[in-house]
């Protein structure tokens, strides 16, 4: 009898919970769907606008799906020589720059994770201090100038060689995932620290290497400010600076006009704001697509990276 009563009671409370939970779910999912749309819509709009009839876009007839799709915009974008040069430069800066980042950051982070390193606390302080205080724009510029690095490709590759934040993430990874005994065992077997690092530690560090590669790589791909300050020669400009000219300053290079199209026709085309805007949408897609394709594949790694980094400072 008592059993029946409690079962009855339990059923009742569960019903009650179920009722308020349903309301919660409805509100929660509505808000989530709304934020999903807000996040995704601008991206889809750009994608559709880049292949739509520019008149339809500017008159507001195109809201989501492309109207009269054509690849005209892309044709003009690919005629622009500046874009190709910018692309090549960005790929160069991203690949080589990231390799330099890794070559400097990873061994340093490993060494700092070792208790055998006498004075590591002080060395760490030397690094952390630069996170909160720096010389500022002008002294940094004058410094690069005195080293004869202004307007060179080198400054683009090494001006951010170590990010202290990434260094801390990597050091935390080594501290938490590489057991101290592994280092000791290697030492007993006669491994020097170099050998331990290259033969034993590195093969175990794939997750952190991918995380750093992503963080540094995205940074190089998207950065423009260093280039704007330090570079003067157009031939060294990364893609982002070219984009700035097209998207923000609205200036199209005369290069398009020299190639395969009569100058008058091109000028007339560019005079129409609609067409200029269509080119902008295509340019956005062309420059952003590589990132959009790569990042979902690496997603599980950067979630992990944040978790490693958030353990402690």
């Amino acid at each position: 009898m008592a059993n029946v009563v409690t079962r009855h009671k339990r059923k009742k409370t569960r019903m009650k919970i179920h009722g308020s939970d349903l309301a919660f779910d409805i509100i929660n999912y509505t808000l989530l769907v709304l934020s999903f749309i807000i996040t995704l819509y601008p991206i889809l709009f750009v994608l559709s606008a880049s292949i739509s009839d520019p008149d339809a876009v500017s008159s507001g007839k195109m809201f989501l799906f492309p109207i009269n799709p054509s690849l005209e915009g892309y044709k003009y974008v690919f005629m622009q020589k500046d874009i190709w040069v910018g692309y090549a430069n960005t790929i160069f800066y991203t690949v080589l720059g990231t390799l330099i980042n890794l070559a400097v950051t990873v061994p340093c982070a490993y060494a700092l994770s070792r208790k055998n390193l006498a004075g590591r606390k002080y060395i760490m302080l030397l690094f952390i201090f630069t996170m909160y205080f720096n010389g500022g724009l002008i002294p940094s510029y004058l410094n690069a100038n005195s080293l004869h690095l202004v307007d060179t490709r080198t400054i683009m590759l090494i001006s951010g060689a170590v990010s202290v934040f990434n260094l801390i993430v990597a050091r935390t990874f080594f501290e938490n995932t590489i057991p101290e005994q592994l280092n000791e065992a290697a030492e007993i077997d006669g491994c020097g620290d170099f050998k331990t690092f290259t033969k034993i530690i590195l093969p175990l560090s794939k997750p952190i290497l991918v995380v750093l590669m992503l963080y540094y790589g995205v940074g190089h791909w998207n950065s423009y400010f260093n280039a704007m300050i330090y570079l003067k020669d157009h031939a060294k400009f990364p893609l982002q600076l070219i984009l700035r000219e097209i998207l923000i300053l609205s200036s199209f290079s005369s290069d398009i006009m020299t190639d395969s199209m009569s100058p008058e026709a091109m000028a007339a085309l560019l005079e129409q704001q609609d067409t200029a805007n269509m080119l902008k949408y295509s340019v956005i897609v062309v420059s952003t697509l590589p990132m959009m394709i790569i990042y979902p594949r690496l997603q599980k790694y950067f979630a992990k990276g944040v978790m490693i980094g958030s353990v402690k400072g």
Partner: protein
Amino acid sequence: MEKAINNRMLKKNKNKKLKKRIIKHWQLYVMILPAVIYLIIFKYKPMYGVIIAFKDFDMRAGIMGSTWVGFDNFSRLFSSYWFPIILKNTLTISLLSLVIGFPIPIILALMVNEIKNEKMKHTFQTVSYAPHFISIIVVCGMVTLFLNPSTGIINKFLNLLGMESVFFMQNSGMFKWVYVLSGIWQNVGWGAIIYFAALSGVDKSLIESAEIDGANRLQKIKYINFPVLIPTMTILFILRCGQLLGVGYEKVYLLQNATNISASEVISTYVYKMGLINSDFSFSTAVGLFNSIINAIILILANRISRKVGKSSLW
């Protein structure tokens, strides 16, 4: 006497041991060397360059050779026409992004955490990160395209609703909202990652026992999930406070134009223009230094308050 000798011996021994340890692990020091050299050349050397804020810098004379002017550059800053404007704009923009931008990633993480279907959760997260991977130039380009008074999609929507087009980019009162809301669009998902990570550490048995005690969903969030996030929140909040005057030039600079300059000129864009465009090196460095010092003070204060009020702090 004997004790002192003993102590000295011990110290000597310790020094010897330390030396031995350093020699034995010299390879570790080689590993940190490139990073330390980079730090000295590109971080610490420019810090020394800060003294030109107190000089009348002359390229030919160099940092050492230029004449001292004391606090002249600072008094010029404090009495300048732009000073109150850039200070107000910087504070308005950064406080607004802090007040609106700080809680939203937390709310988002708590909401996404309530999605039961793993596949849906995953899809939602992937989409929410996407804007973070779009470069700031492209985001600003999209903003100007979307807000264009005659062709922009946002004004088309407003027209559909029977409203007049708004000149967002030309209206100085709108600037802060354009800046803050586009920033939220770009960074909310990414900002929520760290909270997702913290929530994945919530003890499942706690949730179960709360269920048995009859807690509803909101109560579970309030009493179990939310408290788990508090330490992370505190640290991130202190860090954000330390950057209060550091509104990045990257985005402000791209969004500003001649018509909204009265609301969009901030300390960092001013430093850039005075320094690299007008070549007023000493003055610009003084402005930058003023900025860093205030930031450092706010950071220290925020840390002290949070150590007193809560339990977590940066140091």
